[in-house]
């Protein structure tokens, strides 16, 4: 038997009470698109599943005071259908549309994807580039905020413990003149794990034709999604030009240290992929909302 009890709760409070009662033997389940398989394969064990996926207070996408806030049980389909995200946070809308298949997106949630901590989870790569935070409820009644940069410990391992904690909300700030994009390479468009995912978020300074802020998150090139700090620094150092994007991509290439993988290709190939895809995704991000490049390698935003 994979689990002994399956409880669907009506309130957040009820969920936290059940976790407390079972002291580590119960865990939360969201869509279950990953968890059900992991339980079947005995990669995880649990006696009681507590289903929080239908709680309306965990399903929303809203903009408040320059921040986007997302309820943890929002499904990938809901994210992918959000006009707000397509208008302001393309990288996340693209990431949500890339997850699995329509059937998986209709059930799988953004919160589930985070807690499950797969090394290249599409929405996680996007949220990491967005410098997002999560709000977590503990079963002692306390609440904590954790930045994405501290959330992941290793493959399949996040700081959130679903036997005692509930991921409530994901939030991030919108940047001035924000541009973003997701670069994704996989064997086919649907139902294929990414060979490489790159999330890029930029804030452009149109007057000076340079960047205020640049964030690049790449996965999987390490056990957890990785921010390319050197490449980000390079991007802020000078005015925008094709040559600047090339040096930033080179910096990402230098920082990436993927292992040889039967599934994803060897180290040399994957490093080269980081270089090429960083460059291309930077270009696509800059081109959203009006940025253009010309033949001579100058870029105007």
């Amino acid at each position, binding site marked *: *038997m*994979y*689990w*002994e*009890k*399956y409880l*669907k709760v009506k309130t957040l409070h009820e969920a936290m009470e059940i976790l407390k009662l079972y002291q580590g033997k119960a865990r939360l*389940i969201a869509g*279950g*698109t990953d968890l*059900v*398989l992991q339980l079947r394969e005995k990669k995880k064990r649990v006696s009681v*599943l507590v*289903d929080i*996926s239908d709680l309306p207070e965990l399903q929303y996408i809203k903009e408040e005071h320059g921040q986007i806030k997302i309820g943890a049980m929002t499904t990938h*389909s809901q994210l992918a259908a959000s006009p707000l995200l397509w208008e302001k946070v393309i990288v996340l809308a693209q990431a949500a549309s890339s997850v*699995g*298949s*329509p*059937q*998986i997106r*209709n*059930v799988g949630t953004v919160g589930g994807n985070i807690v499950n901590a797969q090394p290249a989870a599409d929405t996680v790569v996007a949220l990491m580039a967005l410098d997002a935070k999560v709000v977590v409820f503990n079963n002692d009644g306390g609440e904590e905020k954790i930045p994405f940069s501290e959330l992941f410990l290793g493959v399949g391992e996040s700081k959130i413990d679903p036997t005692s904690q509930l991921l409530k909300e994901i939030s991030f700030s919108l940047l001035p003149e924000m541009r973003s994009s997701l670069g994704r390479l996989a064997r086919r*468009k*649907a*139902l294929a794990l990414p060979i490489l995912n790159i999330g890029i978020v930029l804030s452009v300074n149109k007057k000076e034709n340079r960047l205020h802020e640049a964030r690049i998150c790449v996965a999987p090139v390490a056990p957890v999604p990785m921010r390319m700090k050197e490449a980000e620094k390079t991007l802020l150092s000078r005015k925008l030009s094709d040559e600047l994007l090339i040096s930033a991509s080179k910096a990402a290439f230098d920082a990436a240290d993927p292992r040889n993988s039967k599934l994803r290709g060897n180290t040399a190939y994957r490093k080269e992929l980081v270089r090429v895809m960083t460059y291309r995704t930077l270009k696509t991000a800059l081109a959203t909302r009006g940025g253009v490049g010309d033949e001579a390698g100058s870029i105007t935003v």
Partner: protein
Amino acid sequence: MKLEVLQFELNARKVSVRVKPDATLLDVLREDLDLTGAKRGCGEGECGACTVLIDGMPVDSCIYPALKAAGKNIETIEGLGTEDNLHPVQKAFLDEGAVQCGFCTPGMILTTTALLAKNQSPSEEEVKVALSGNLCRCTGYTKIINAVKVAARNINKL
């Protein structure tokens, strides 16, 4: 093992059934309710042969815990049309030769009805994206995509 009572709406009828707590929706449909239209292909959420509609949305029932479906509205291929009165999507699949072995067909047809409920005249690209979670090993997809377009036209004429 203690069985749990699961209640939901299935093909427009209220259903109550006793299920194992760790059964999937596909298990319950096929084993307990004798609805064998939904197929088990991969059993892992990769092929869409087990697709059913939950509250109007295509879902892989092979990885969907049965008790998660409590209170929801489930549609399977058995609820769509009858032999003498086919649903327009079923008819289009037959007319266009979009069925070979038929294993993927219930899932394809349900996914198509969900698409056409939202979008009456989908583009070819939209059809492909909508069907991207349904694998077919026989047809090569051309005839399936064609059947979806024909179904859309026929429904719009109704």
